[in-house]
């Protein structure tokens, strides 16, 4: 492999372009593999052997660096190294005698940020996508529309991504041709399905699946080296990914795969852990019952205890041609009939009634995980879908979108009609005010804010009254069940000046009670800053919010404040909020603010 600057070879390339361009055609790709914060591997196939060249740069049309491989081949594989983290690159592929495709807006990639960086991450998981049919095309196009303007960091093929037996030709049609646009700019990190097993073997690492993918076996992308491409791990931003082989590899405790899994999980410090493999630990899909199939049983019995003990957040699988999504689970390693209520840490829907919440930020033992079967990207098979661990089952074409932003993960099952048929969220850490004030809040006819600052923060005080506004009970949610409410005060610069959280009754600290058609909260210890709160839904004539807070939990900043100051009540599990904006204050002093 040789890297040169474009200036040094410009003349030679121009000559070569003139003489040979068009003689060779790209028949697969280009597609991206092995993403890291400093590298990316570009692969493509040509219909005749040539040497390989990738030219790249950070400006479209100005590709300043060439990387060459002199070996003539039709299977081109060029690793680009020494890249800058979190940077978008444009590229083209070809040979030293001429470029073939690229150097346009469609051919670009983004390097990962430095591992551990907190930034939004978007994943798309496709399962059992091996049929080429209009439904599959509709799923793909629905996602393309859904993700317009949003970079997809990774494509996660969950196995059985080319029917019937995962041959090279089948992969060409169902994967490389189907996802050509996406694969030019988004790396794919696949797992191995039972249909791939008809033509490839993870134990010998032979067959078309191993020929077409370049995967990390030596911890190149983060994680502990597995020594095989059959199962591996990698990091992206603040997420650690585990990819297991549920088909051929030894699934027994003490076997090499699960021994590696334990070492790998113990080493990670990422905020989020996502694991995926083909055979679902929980499913009642047609012909794929996790109470019957050995692989599903063994993965559940042997892999899940390790994963949950070391902090997994989300587990993705395919195999069953449907969508199933679990409750927030922990410790369910037996048959479906053995699911006990204590294993369901949150029986809510994970969305409208509040996100599933893990108290710890970062990997945490046995704080709950969501299990998703996303195997309906190209086929749907009727089934009972009556596994009791599941919150929802859908007989719809679609695939799973996963968004991670800071301490919140959102899963969206996007169907072939572009509808979000299921949404769930997992939030980490204590509920807290958003860093910036929300927009579009309901306003009040009348509202009063009092802030008192003391040299001893335990004696700080906060009072807020809001009334004569629209306070829909549906927007408030149910804090006696899942909904976390917070009062948040922002100064003129949008900085959070103080906050107070009243966690839902699902939290041990929650102290909510029903009160009329609304709710009241009372906690004399005020650990989250709130002493009392009363939320009375209604129309502008009857609605009312009254909050009293105290203590260091308020995190009250320095007074006086820069006006206007904004006070909001936010439903932290939904988007609803109620606010008052104060442009004037009766008092605005170092010890007390009264507005208006």
């Amino acid at each position: 492999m040789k890297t040169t600057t474009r200036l040094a070879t410009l003349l030679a390339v121009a000559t070569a372009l003139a003489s040979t361009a068009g003689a060779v055609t790209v028949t697969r790709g280009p597609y991206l593999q092995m993403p890291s914060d400093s590298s990316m591997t570009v692969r493509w196939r040509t219909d005749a052997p040539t040497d390989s060249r990738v030219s790249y740069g950070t400006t479209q049309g100005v590709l300043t660096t060439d990387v060459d491989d002199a070996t003539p081949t039709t299977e081109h594989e060029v690793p680009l190294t020494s890249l800058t983290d979190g940077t978008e690159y444009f590229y083209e592929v070809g040979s030293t005698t001429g470029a073939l495709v690229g150097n346009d807006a469609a051919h670009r990639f983004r390097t990962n940020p430095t591992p551990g960086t907190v930034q939004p991450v978007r994943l798309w998981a496709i399962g059992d996508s091996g049929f080429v049919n209009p439904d599959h095309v509709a799923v793909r196009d629905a996602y393309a529309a859904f993700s317009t303007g949003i970079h997809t960091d990774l494509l996660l093929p969950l196995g059985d991504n080319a029917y019937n037996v995962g041959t090279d030709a089948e992969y060409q049609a169902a994967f490389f041709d189907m996802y050509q646009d996406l694969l030019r700019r988004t790396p794919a990190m696949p797992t191995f399905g039972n249909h791939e097993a008809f033509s490839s073997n993870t134990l010998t690492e032979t067959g078309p699946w191993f020929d077409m993918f370049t995967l990390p076996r030596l911890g190149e992308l983060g994680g502990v080296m597995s020594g095989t491409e059959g199962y591996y791990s990698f990091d992206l931003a603040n997420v650690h990914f585990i990819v297991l082989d549920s088909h051929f590899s030894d699934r027994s405790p003490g076997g090499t795969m699960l021994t590696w899994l334990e070492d790998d999980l113990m080493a990670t410090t990422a905020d989020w852990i996502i694991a995926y493999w083909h055979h679902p630990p929980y499913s009642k899909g047609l012909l794929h019952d996790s109470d019957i199939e050995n692989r599903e049983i063994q993965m559940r019995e042997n892999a899940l205890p390790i994963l949950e003990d070391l902090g997994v957040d989300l587990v993705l699988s395919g195999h069953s041609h449907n969508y199933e999504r679990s409750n927030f689970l922990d410790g369910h390693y037996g048959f479906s009939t053995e699911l006990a209520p204590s294993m369901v840490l949150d029986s809510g829907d994970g969305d409208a009634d509040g996100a599933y919440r893990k108290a710890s930020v970062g990997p945490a033992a046995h704080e709950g995980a969501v299990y998703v079967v996303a195997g309906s990207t190209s086929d749907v098979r009727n089934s009972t879908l009556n596994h009791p661990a599941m919150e929802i089952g859908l007989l719809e074409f679609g695939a799973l979108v996963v968004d991670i932003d800071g301490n919140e993960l959102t899963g969206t099952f996007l169907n072939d009609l572009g509808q979000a048929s299921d949404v769930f969220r997992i939030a980490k850490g204590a509920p807290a005010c958003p860093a910036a004030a929300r927009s579009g809040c309901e306003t009040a006819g009348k509202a009063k804010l009092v802030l008192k600052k003391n040299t001893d923060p335990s004696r700080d005080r906060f009072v807020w009254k809001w009334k004569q506004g629209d306070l829909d009970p549906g927007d408030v949610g149910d804090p006696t069940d899942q909904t976390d409410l917070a009062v948040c005060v922002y100064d003129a610069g949008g900085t959070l000046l103080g906050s107070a959280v009243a966690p839902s009754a699902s939290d041990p600290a929650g102290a909510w009670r029903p009160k009329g058609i609304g709710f009241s909260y009372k906690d004399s210890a005020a650990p989250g800053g709130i002493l009392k709160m009363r939320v009375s839904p209604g129309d502008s004539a009857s609605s009312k919010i009254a909050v009293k807070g105290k203590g260091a939990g308020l995190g009250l900043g320095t007074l006086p404040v820069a006006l206007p100051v904004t006070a909001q009540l936010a439903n932290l599990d939904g988007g609803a909020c109620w606010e008052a904006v104060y442009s004037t204050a009766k008092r605005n002093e170092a010890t007390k603010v009264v507005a208006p």
Partner: protein
Amino acid sequence: MGDLGGRGVRRRPVSVCAALLLAALAHPLMPRGAGAHQDLADVLAAHEREHARRGSDPAIHLEEANLRRQARDVDGALVAVERAAALGAEPGDIAIVRGQVFLDAGWPGAARAEVDRALRAHPERVHVRLTRARAAHRLGELTAAAADYRAAIAGMRSPTPDHVVEYRDVLLEAGDRAGALAALDLGMTRIGPVPTLQLPAIDLALALDRDADALRRIDALLAQNPRNERWLARRGEILERSGRTDEAKHTYGVALALIEARPAGRRGGRIRALEQRLRAHLAPTTKEKDTP
């Protein structure tokens, strides 16, 4: 949606045939693995459709034999092999597939005879030596098995840790611990210093009283990740066994400090068990307690 509540299932209408199939599948006598076999049945059905297009190609019949082998359909697999042979399939290819079918069927002697034939025709097909190694192992011919494992691991493009562990197990069964350690080293030469091979190599080095070698190996692992508490604990145990008690205690202390630095949520059962192990190592012995 189940007993614990949920939002239920949204579905398209189930046809009568599908309903009958569902009812059959829900039967308690439905065997484990039935779903996997159905996948295979689907694949075979598609394969048979392919026969119409490529029926005279012996390769498709060998593919079918392999599919039937995976379905444990020994008779069907052998019939497909015979069809391939009748169509002029290359004898070495036939012997390879037939050998695998025989091995999976539990006939290691017949399997080895076939694979011998295949390797005589194609000695360069080094992965076939894995099949022969497994056949020899089942026949109790451990030396022959080890030789084939060694050749396969040395020659394969991508041997995996599982191959190396199989090779090690054969040598351990033969009572050859030093050979087993060398097998793991061969594997690491080919694959890389993966923990799944280095950790058992450490166990073997200690069993052979090669403490310095064990220490070198755990240090090599720790060079990959100096903050791995479990590997640090193992290092401490090796040092302690070597009589380097002070260094051992220091290493245990480092590991324990790393565990204590973990947030509470990151201390699950495995971490707590390791913590207890470290604390037990750090607890003063009776002799130490008696020392004024």
